[in-house]
């Protein structure tokens, strides 16, 4: 069994990597020339947020934070479907 104290040395590096990636993605969300670009960047942002939730629940050793990951993973797909229907409005009969 691995002691919990090891997590205190390992997880902060992962937090730094994911936070940097989310900052660079959010530049595309604000700048994105068209709507599909923004939605694509939001997809990857939310997917990173799921990983950060799981890392936080490991870091603080509370399981209550983790349950938010599954609705977020489903919400990404719903966002794609809704935006696709919005783009195709009036095209289908």
């Amino acid at each position, binding site marked *: *069994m691995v002691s919990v104290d090891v997590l205190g040395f390992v997880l902060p590096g992962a937090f730094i990597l994911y936070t940097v*990636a989310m900052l660079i993605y959010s530049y595309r969300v604000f700048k994105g020339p068209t709507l599909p*670009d923004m939605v*694509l960047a939001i997809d990857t942002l939310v997917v990173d947020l799921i990983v950060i939730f799981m890392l936080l629940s490991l870091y603080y050793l509370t*399981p209550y934070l983790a349950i938010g990951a599954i609705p977020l993973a489903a919400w990404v*797909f719903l966002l794609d479907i809704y935006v*696709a229907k919005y783009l195709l409005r009036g095209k289908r009969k």
Partner: protein
Amino acid sequence: MIDLIIFWIGVGLLFLGGILDVIAAIGMNRFNNFFLRLHAATVGSIGGAVYPLAGIALIAVSLDMPATFKYYIAGISVIAGLLIVLTAPAGSHILAKAAHKSGEVSPKPVIVDKLREKEEVSEE
């Protein structure tokens, strides 16, 4: 001993996912077309989220904690990773098809566009 090996495999997957995620974020800003950015989005959602979620599940299983905590975290990680694996490719395909069909984005350096020709034939 086996716990230590599982733990460090999980940490390796976690950092591999983080590095892939930063690479995908840089690619998302450097590609200059929506259809090129789809490649970066795929790297960011499969390489940047499914690998680290598998790594988090391995880390949680090998921890020295009560079973109600570690199997809960591992189960949620596996379920979220499976959801992302199943839905991220389908979602980006739906989005790409809708963007192409509605004319919202246009592929700039294009030589031949079979999909557009097919739509024009079917509309007439």
